[in-house]
């Protein structure tokens, strides 16, 4: 007798999972090493490698805001 059909993963959960995986890749080898680990171009006076990490912080904050908004039931 077949078991219950697994429920599909809701889109916001799926997108968050993809974002987290991509973010970890961008913080570590090889993506960061290949794309972010350089000095130029400098961003607001900061080396690109530093601005890259700060950019990920900003992006994560934005993504979590969107995710929270999309998944919280409004009363």
């Amino acid at each position, binding site marked *: 007798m077949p078991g219950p059909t697994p429920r599909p993963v809701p889109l916001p959960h799926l997108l968050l999972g993809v974002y987290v995986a991509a973010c970890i890749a961008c913080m570590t080898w090889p993506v960061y090493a290949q794309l972010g*680990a350089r*000095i130029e171009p400098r961003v607001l006076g900061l080396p690109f490698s530093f601005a890259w990490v700060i950019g990920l912080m900003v992006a994560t904050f934005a993504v979590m805001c969107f995710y929270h908004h999309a998944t919280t039931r409004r009363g």
Partner: protein
Amino acid sequence: MGDSTIVVGISVLYLGACLLVGMWPRKQSASADGYVAGDRSLGLVVMYFITGATIFSAFAFLGAPGRAYEKGAYAFYILSFGTLGFVPFYFIGPRAARLGRRFGFVTQAEMVASRFRMPALAGAMALVSALAFVPYLTLQMQGSGYVLNAVTRDAVPRWMGGLIVYAVVLAYVWRSGVLGVGWTNTFQGMFMLALAWGLGLYLPYKLYGGVGPMFARLAVEKPEYLVPPGPTSSGEPGSWGAYSTDILVSIIGFSFWPHLFMKAFTARDENTLRRTVVLYPTFQFFLVPLVIIGFAGILFASAPEQPDQILPHILMNVELSPVLVGLFCAGALAASMSSGDAIAHAAGSILIRDGVVTALGKRFDPARERFLIRVTLTGVMVLAYVIALLGADDLVALLLYAYGPITQFAPVVVAALYWRRATGTGVFAGLVAGVVISSILKAEPAWRPWPLHEGIYGMVANVAILVFVSLATQRQSDWDREYLEVAAGGGGGLSAAPSAPPSASRPRA
């Protein structure tokens, strides 16, 4: 008025303000739950600062600039792991909060031990936590003593600085429990944020004409410091494997620090908890200016004795107003105290609730339990102070071995909250394997097959053994289903009123 007098005066004013905020009487039930979890009543503002300020310790003002000064871009790992490290708490925090509200849990270990009805698990987690907390607290005390001593140019001896600062901490933690921690952390957190940004922008401007010109000089004179993974302490090129796995292990373990995890039981509701996690990166930004200060030290004319002393070293060797130095001192004390108070409070709570009540099965009335927690946290603080006083750095280094195994709590907690098939034997075996392997590889780095963080090896062994042994041992009763349904937000077939789980837990107050 001498410079040291002004610096000491500002620090004393700051400590007085902390004492006032921490001792301010607030409505709190007489039970241990009130003392440990604040009657689960904390709102968003206090939750935001209590989590942020708890995470940022004396390390933020001393260690973060020290890493950037010593290893350049390697310090970016501190910013990176914090960015994602709290995200798991968005999901596990509300689950823990539901269980806590239903069954009266106030610590991580009693929540886990109850799921598996295994008191020994609570005892083991309490022991590892206590072993990690004591040196952590010692370092906070040493940090505050060092800062006061440095900025007053030896006018305040280190032993006295640490003693005064932590006497204040003991006073408000003893009286107000987690509410004292929460409200002082709110005050301290705001102070730290303002100070970090002020110093981080002002010092590069004062020394090099601004942040941009400073990095322009570094790009010409020391470019290797600006490209991750940065140089090692000895000046050799760093390893991407170590850099990347430092981040991974820290992300995995971040949410499971017992003194941080316990805050899941203090929030007013689930939405407050989730919004705290969403807002957390705004607190993380506070590390950016401190890392910038570390880079400022690379070009500085003289060098401190230790890399972690770079920020006070710069402050004491440039022409600065003593008021600014005094404010820095207060900011560094805020960072030390806001972690030290949470650690001391957690240590007392965990040793009594997990070690004595859950693991040993002792039962106390609520007032007695709260008194024992207070006495225990005092004992932990005295022990940490004595170790700091003796300058027993070898002992601190030894005890810091327990710092790593804390990350091995992650699979245990996730299995308890999500995996129905997990068994107590499985999680206990996995935890032991993870702790042993990571500790051995920490002690003997040459035994690692690849240059990765030892926690990764421990985590792989932990998860593999947890899964294998769980599948090989007997499935547990309906209690697992009920527990997980409550965690997921369902009724779980249990009564809606708070109730006690079967065994492995004390009767509710």
